[in-house]
Structure formats: structure tokens, C-alpha cells
């Protein structure tokens, strides 16, 4: 299945990770080793400048009322998936500038907009929608609304894309760079 993985130039994807199904990884995105991305319910599109850290899992689950052709899961730009987080989504869209902190779990019925933070070890399984700039933290799932989106991790991305090739085997980019303008219009959908 992994031959369906499309890695755009500029993305840093370690070899030691499980990518199953139709997956597109945008330029500037860094995928650490031991990451699992499974697109069983439809293709997964990851936009630019995301960081997906070790042991994190992104699954596009098969849903019962599957559309045909399957709807892609679109993950917006500047998302950070921290170590050990697990995101299962059947909604077709995850916004941008979200942070999924360490060992958090986002169930299939959770809709995530932009600028949200799911705190470390927060398990969101009940159906809900996180509006823009929602921050959830702590074992009691305290919620607050931030004033602005989380800052982007451009410095970190820069560092990672420089350092990662020195220590890990990387997958070769195989896609063609799309026009940035087209990308952004798609992200806006």
C-alpha cells in the first residue's frame, strides 16, 4: 500500500515509520521516526509545516456510511502532533495551527477547528466540536479560549529539517511541488 505515499519536495519523512494507504505529505512537514499514519477510510492529506513527532498515530477511520469515492482527511498547515498522541478522525478536516500534546487522544467524533490545543494526556472521546482557539488541559479537561492562534514552530521546523538527515534515513520526495497558491485555496475549504 505504501506506494501510494506521495511526499512533496521539502518534506522530511523518516524511513522508520508506518505509512499505509493514500497519503500526501506537504512540503516543509517533518515526520519523525516511529510515526504511524493509516489511511484506511480514505486518503490523508497533510499540508505544509506540520511536525509529527515520535510514536504519534493518525488514523483516518473507516466509517459506516462511507462515501464513494472516499472523502479525504485534510490536515491543515502548522499542526504539531507531539510524542505519543493519537488522532482518529472521520471528519474530513483538521484546521491549522493546532497542537496535539503528548499522549493525548482525539476520538473519531471530535471535530477540530484551527488554533486548538489538546493538552497532554487529555482523552477526548465524546462527540464534540472544538471551536477556533480552544485550549483543553488537565485531567479535568479544563477549557479556555485563547485570544490568538498558537505561534507557528518555524524555527523548530528549520532546525529539524537540517538535523534529521544527519541521523535518520529519510524517504525520498516523490511528488511534484504544487503551486503554493493552489495549496492555500484548498486549505481554506
Amino acid at each position, binding site marked *: 500500500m505504501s506506494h501510494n505515499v506521495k511526499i512533496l519536495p521539502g518534506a522530511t519523512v523518516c524511513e522508520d515509520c508506518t505509512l499505509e494507504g493514500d497519503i500526501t505529505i506537504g512540503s516543509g512537514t517533518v515526520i519523525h521516526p516511529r510515526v504511524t499514519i493509516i489511511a484506511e477510510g480514505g486518503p490523508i492529506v497533510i499540508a505544509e509545516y506540520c511536525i509529527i513527532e515520535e510514536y504519534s498515530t493518525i488514523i483516518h477511520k473507516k466509517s459506516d456510511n462511507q462515501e464513494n469515492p472516499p472523502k479525504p482527511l485534510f490536515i491543515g498547515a502548522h499542526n504539531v502532533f507531539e510524542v505519543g498522541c493519537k488522532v482518529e478522525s472521520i471528519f474530513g478536516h483538521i484546521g491549522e495551527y493546532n497542537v496535539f500534546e503528548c499522549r493525548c487522544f482525539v476520538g473519531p467524533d471530535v471535530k477540530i477547528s484551527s488554533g486548538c490545543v489538546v493538552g497532554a494526556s487529555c482523552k477526548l472521546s465524546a462527540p464534540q466540536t472544538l471551536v477556533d482557539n480552544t485550549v483543553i*488541559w488537565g485531567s479535568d479537561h479544563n477549557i*479556555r479560549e*485563547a485570544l*490568538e492562534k498558537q505561534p507557528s514552530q518555524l524555527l523548530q521546523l528549520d532546525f529539524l529539517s537540517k538535523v534529521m538527515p544527519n541521523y535518520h534515513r529519510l524517504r525520498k520526495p516523490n511528488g511534484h511541488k504544487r503551486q503554493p497558491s493552489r495549496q492555500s485555496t484548498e486549505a481554506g475549504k
Partner: protein
Amino acid sequence: MAYLIQPDYVQYFCTCGQIKPITNLYFCRHCLKVRCGFCICHEVDSHYCANCLENMPSSEARLKKNRCSSCFDCPSCFHTLSTRATYAPARQDPAAGDAKVENKQPKKMYYLSCFNCRWTSRDVGIPDQPVASGGWPERTNPFANRFGQLLEYFKAIAQQEKQDKLDKERKKYAIRGKYITLTDKTGLTGAMARTTAGLPSSESSSSAIANFVPSQAKEEVEELPEDYHTKEVNLKLITTMPQRLASPEWQAQLVSRLQPIARPLSVKRSQRCRRCDHNLTKPEYNPGSIKFKIELLAYYHVPEVKIISFETIKPGCTTELLLKLTNPTAHEMQISIIQPDEVPEVEEKEEPKSIEKSLEKSLNLEKDTSWRQVIERKPLLPTTIKLHKPELSFTLAQRDDAAEYDDDSHHETNDIILWRKSNKLALRLKVTTDEEAKVGSPAVAILALQYSYRNTVPPTANSPQTRDHVLYTTVAIHLGTVTQ
């Protein structure tokens, strides 16, 4: 032995009757008694900030209301805030033009941010600061002004009352007036009663009293807006109770009114034996250090008992129990195991009366021992499990760190002493459980240790001490529950 998350299986009886694990007990070398947190005197030793580990002299701490001047807590989740730097875009000054080159450099600005809940000082509209620490706007209590007026007023009344009393005494009024009893009974507001009742108040009514305006009652009470109940409630904008109570001065009800909380200081405590006023613990001044200058813990002076294993306790049965004893002191210890009721009742008797002693007493303030009657209590000893007293007294070698490496397994062992190793030995004891012991109730065996202790406090002139003592300690051993 105490455990972090497990229950305390072996507990000691403090002299005051509390039952605690050995790690929570102290040993006063001067009274030769076990003490615990309940029966000793705690004192504030030094103030410090637990975040920046900065010491603060107590006078300064008092001025700053026990708060650190550089560290802040998040008002939303109470985690420590960190200072973050950003580059503010350089402001183009049209007047200066490009004359100043360094002006083009982006200026570093700082704001506070919480790594836990991502709260930032920008969320509530606090402007970024040009310096990394300090300079954050301080909010004053909105009621401070009125409070000040009230305080001045009451102080003036108290002053006047005092003056009146003095005057009366000078004039030597033989008969006490009606209103004096009223004042005596009701406190300072009695004087207030007099002024408001239009009674002849004293001539020296100060300006504070004259100028004071009492609170004005209003007929209308603030009503909720008409559409209050139909409006949507956004819980994210309303603070929770802990968030409100974290700053008692203003208790913000809206999230937008939250302010960084200056971090409360912590204290290092020193502890003192109530009986002899000697220090039991005294911490080092440096906040980063976890060491003590004085550290008289029971763990270093009292033989430690640990459970190796035990047989299940059944009613009417005799079961075996394996214990490990450790001598923590640097001297050999003679230990015998006795029944708890054999511990002699040692009253902490008064010092022998001698002329010198009473002279000393008259010089110093008499030692106050009234606390003893309220603090000390007799614990109830469970008696369902009886210990078979081994007819044996044994010596336990001193603690010797080098002995750890010696291979000395050829000690004499017998039925009771299973093995010895440097300052430790294992014991096999028998306990008999009462027929009537209730199944399911906790099984607690009580045993007492008689041990010799060598006092290492150098004897002083006025307290000639014997070096060797025989001490007692009582231990409660938790053996699970009584089972059928």
C-alpha cells in the same frame, strides 16, 4: 518503614501517643525521647521563592506580602508562568528618519505565557514589557480607599475611648456610669454608639470621626438585565471558583479580568522540642539545598523494624512473623523484645530540685508545660494479637558503611535469629491471635523494643549526663487483615 504510595506497614508510637512511620518521627537527643510533628514546635526559618530559589529576608517578605517579585503564577491553571521574548517590529520614527541606525533593529519585547494551559498576558490585554523581569502592572484593591477610611475612623474611636478612660481615671469617678458597662460589654463600637446617640462625646473628637461618612443604604438593588435568562452563556468566559479565590483582593468573575499572580513564597521551617527547647531540625539557609544543619530524625537513632514476611493471621492460631531489625547508630546496641505493657511508665519528671536549679528557674521564665495536657494522649492498643516473647536479648552491631563489603556470613544463628549482616539481623517471632478476633478486621501486632542507646551529646557542666541509656519504643506492625 514508610512508603510513598503504599500504606505504612510498621508504625512507631511517639512519646505523645501519635502513631506514625519512623520517617515522620524525630528523636530529641537531650530528652532522649521520640517526638513527632504534632508535639513539637514549628518555626518559620527563612522565606524563599520555590521557583527562582531566591532567598528573601523576612522583613522584605513582609513588605512584599510574601510574594516573589519576579515569578508569576498562571491565573488560569496556577502553573508557573514563563517569560517569552518576541521581536516587536521596529517603529519607524518619521521625524528621526534613517539617522539612527540602531533604531532599525527590532526591539525585544517580553510577555508571560503558561506552558500548561497556554494562557498569555496578551490574552487579557496586558501590554508587552521591554524588560524581562518586573515592570508588570500591579493592580490595587478597588476597595482599598474605603477600607482606609474605615480603618482611620475605628482607630480614632479606639483612641478616643482610651483617652476617655484615662480621663475618667484621672478624675477618679467613683460611680461607674451607665454607658461604661455598655462599652465594656460591646467593645469599641460602644463608643460609636455614644457618638451616634448624641451623647456628650469627649471634647477631643478628632477630625477622622467628624469627617467619616457612614455607608449609605440605597433603595434600589442592582437587578439582572431583562434578557439575562435568554442570553447564551459562554462558560469559557466565566472564571471558576479556584480562579476567583486565587486572588482574594479582586476575585475576577470574567476570564478577561484575570491577572498574573505574583508567586507566593515558601518557608523553610525549623523544629524545636517543646520540652527542652533544643532544635530538632534546622535547615540550611540556601534555598537550593535540601540539607539540614541539625537533623535529629528518629531514623538515625531508633532501631528500625521492617517486615520480611508473615503468615496470614487467623483467629485462634499461632502464626510466624519474620522481621528485620537495623541499628542505625554508630554504637553497638543491646536489644530485647518485650511486651508493650512491660514498657515502664516513664514520667517526664521534673528536674531534681536543688538550690542552683531554683535559682536558674527564677532567672529564666518558668518553663511552660501546659501544652502537655492537651497534646499528650494515651493511644488505645489493640490486644487481639499477642506476641510470644522470645527469651532473648541480642546485640546489634553498629552501622559501618565499610562492612557492606565484608563477607561475614559466619555469625551464629539459631531458631530466632535467622541471619545477621553487619548492623542488621532477621528475627523469627510467633504471634497468637485471639479466638474472638473479627474476621476482616485489620490485624495489628504490637511489640516493644528495649534498646541501649549511647548519648553522644557532650555533657555540660550543669547537666551531667550518663552516657549509656536504656530506652524503649513501641511498634505497631500491620499484618493485613484477619482471615478465616
